[in-house]
């Protein structure tokens, strides 16, 4: 153990004196974070424009009234500034044509009665040519209200078919349209796995460059051989595994330190919050272990440090991009499951959980993914014929 620490300490000292490590592990990722933040940072600062909705609804239709009130009630919700103008249908169409309204809702006469009796009815929505995302938000809300009203129509049809008396039928429809959903899903903060863009960028770049950083440690084995020091180490009275283990330890430590610094500095520069320190520390250590395991596979097959460097870059970019280091990545089917096993992706998910307030007890899945990845890679590296430094 003493010899392992001696070798590891010496290696870390040399890495600390190696400016290329400093540049690759800290300067480049921070620079990239800055560039991406400047280019894409405005996505997060989206400001909704005021939106005018022209509504034509029968005055004596209480169901139509509900719809109008819901739309009117959006004012001040989630940054929306909605103005509802109640006009007749012709004027509503004119407003759209003139560009005075972003959205027009035309509720037909007998809308409420039809809904209660389970008869087909529809609300016509007209979207202005230059309407923005605000109109889409209002439309989606209207769509939701209509779905609920549609539930009432279904209830009415079912009641009629079963011969429910008219008074009871009205009560049932009323309950279906105004009672709200029977079940609600409340998302706790710990299950919120979405980082905001700035935090996602910091975490993604940290995950991507973690792979480059640990590469410095493990490829040191190849450099030892190229520099002749591996032969000298092997002539020392130390077990052979100590040399390999020291490189793994160096990689792990470099990965943990570099990622911790990146998350801290990146968080400070770009306002990212990652939550529980112990949980983040566990995630960073697991990610570093996973990354180190990949590098051992590379060292197994690469004959020179140059080959190892190229392979490291390829693996880092594939895992980094696939894990969402630059932008969110989504897929379906098996590919989606495969992406979920990516350690960078798992790190981001874990940090999403901690940033939402999750603690050690909430990061089990990403931790297991990363440790599982490390075990699989380490096992594979044992099975692959050694063409590299230990051959």
């Amino acid at each position: 153990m003493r010899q392992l620490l001696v070798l590891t300490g010496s290696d870390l000292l040399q890495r600390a004196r190696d400016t290329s490590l400093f540049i690759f592990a800290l300067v480049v990722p921070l620079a990239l974070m800055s560039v991406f933040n400047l280019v894409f940072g405005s996505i997060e600062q989206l400001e909704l424009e005021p939106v005018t909705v022209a509504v034509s609804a029968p005055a004596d239709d209480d169901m139509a009234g509900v719809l109008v009130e819901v739309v009117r009630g959006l004012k001040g919700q989630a940054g929306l500034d909605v103005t509802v103008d109640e006009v007749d249908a012709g004027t509503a169409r004119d407003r759209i044509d003139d560009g005075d309204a972003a959205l027009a809702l035309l509720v037909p006469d007998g809308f409420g009665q039809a809904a209660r009796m389970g008869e087909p009815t529809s609300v016509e929505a007209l979207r202005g040519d230059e309407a923005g995302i605000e109109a889409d938000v209002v439309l989606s809300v209207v769509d939701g209200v209509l779905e609920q009203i549609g539930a009432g129509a279904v209830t009415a049809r079912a009641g009629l078919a079963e011969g429910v008396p008219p008074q009871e039928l009205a009560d049932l429809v009323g309950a279906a349209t105004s009672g709200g959903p029977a079940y609600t899903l409340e998302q706790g903060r710990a299950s919120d796995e979405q980082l905001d863009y700035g935090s996602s960028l910091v975490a993604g770049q940290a995950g991507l460059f973690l792979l480059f950083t640990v590469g410095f440690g493990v490829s040191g084995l190849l450099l030892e051989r190229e520099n002749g020091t591996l032969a000298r180490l092997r002539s020392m009275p130390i077990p052979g595994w100590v040399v390999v283990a020291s490189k793994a330890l160096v990689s792990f430590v470099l990965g943990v330190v570099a990622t911790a610094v990146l998350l801290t500095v990146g968080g400070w520069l770009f306002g990212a919050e990652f939550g529980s320190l112990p949980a983040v520390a566990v995630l960073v250590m697991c990610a570093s272990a996973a990354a180190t395991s990949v590098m051992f596979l590379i060292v197994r097959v690469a004959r020179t440090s140059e080959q190892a460097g190229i392979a490291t870059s390829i693996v880092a970019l594939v895992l980094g991009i696939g894990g969402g280091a630059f932008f969110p990545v989504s897929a379906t089917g098996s590919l989606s499951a495969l992406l979920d096993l990516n350690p960078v992706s798992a790190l981001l998910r874990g940090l999403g959980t901690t940033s939402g307030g999750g603690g050690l007890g909430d990061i089990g899945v990403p931790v297991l993914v990363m440790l599982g990845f490390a075990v699989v890679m380490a096992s594979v590296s044992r099975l692959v014929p050694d063409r590299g430094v230990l051959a």
Partner: protein
Amino acid sequence: MTDDVLVVDSLVRRFGDLTAVDGVSFRIAPGETYGLLGPNGAGKTTTISMVAGLIAADEGTVTVAGQPMTPRTTGPKRHLGLVPQELAIYPDLTGRENLALFGRLQGLRGAALRGRVEEVLSLIGLADRAKDRSKEYSGGMKRRLNIGIGLLNRPTLLILDEPTVGVDPQSRHAILESVEALSGEGMAVLYTTHYMEEAERLCDRIGIIDSGRLQAEGTRDELVRLIGGVDTIRLGGTGDLAGAADELRRIPGVERVETERRSAVLTVKDAPALVAQVVGTAAAHGVTLADVEISRPDLESVFLHLTGKGLRD
């Protein structure tokens, strides 16, 4: 011979179809410098790689200080100092840090480590540059540091693999002097080289290796005798050289005398012992000598005789 520091017995190492080392055996006693002399690719480095426990032998055994050496054993490596052919130092560490690192790996610690590091720094003449990173050293200084690391643990067996390759004459001279001093202190030295003059100067015994096989071994004189080697004395001058030739042939040890108009070439058993008598005899017959040249068979001749090729082929 049980107290031999190194016993190499019937070593074989193959790389695919190539047999790099084929049945090599030799021993080194304490205080003895043994040279493995052979051209590049002869199997010298592969042999010492097995001796140092860097690679495993396919057949045969290596015993260092009475303990079997394999890549997995650590005990015999405590007796070993290896100076690889390539520089094996860390450029981003200072000279002192390089020495301290390898000293710790060899089990030195505390005051003993610090003391030994300073001793070695003085020995290799780097005490005043000990704080500089080794990448800032000259080529000769790096070579000296490379050797110094091999001396840290006061090894029973020091292995030097072509330590003077690519070294300037001044550093080369310093290295050879250091090796002479070390063997004088009782250290067993295994020295590989393809420079005949280094082997002749340093080594008590020499093994001539080629194509993975030890062709012959012994002292320099024993090796020369193997090829029935004789010396030559060439006399240049004026006078009756032909007349002196008959008298020169009568000197015991002179085997043959061939004369030309202004020179005579004598084939003799031991030129240094006979040269005075030869010069005196020639002068007694009125020959005025302008020059006298002695030639002795060297290891190059031996190698050529044994392998049919030169050392630098």
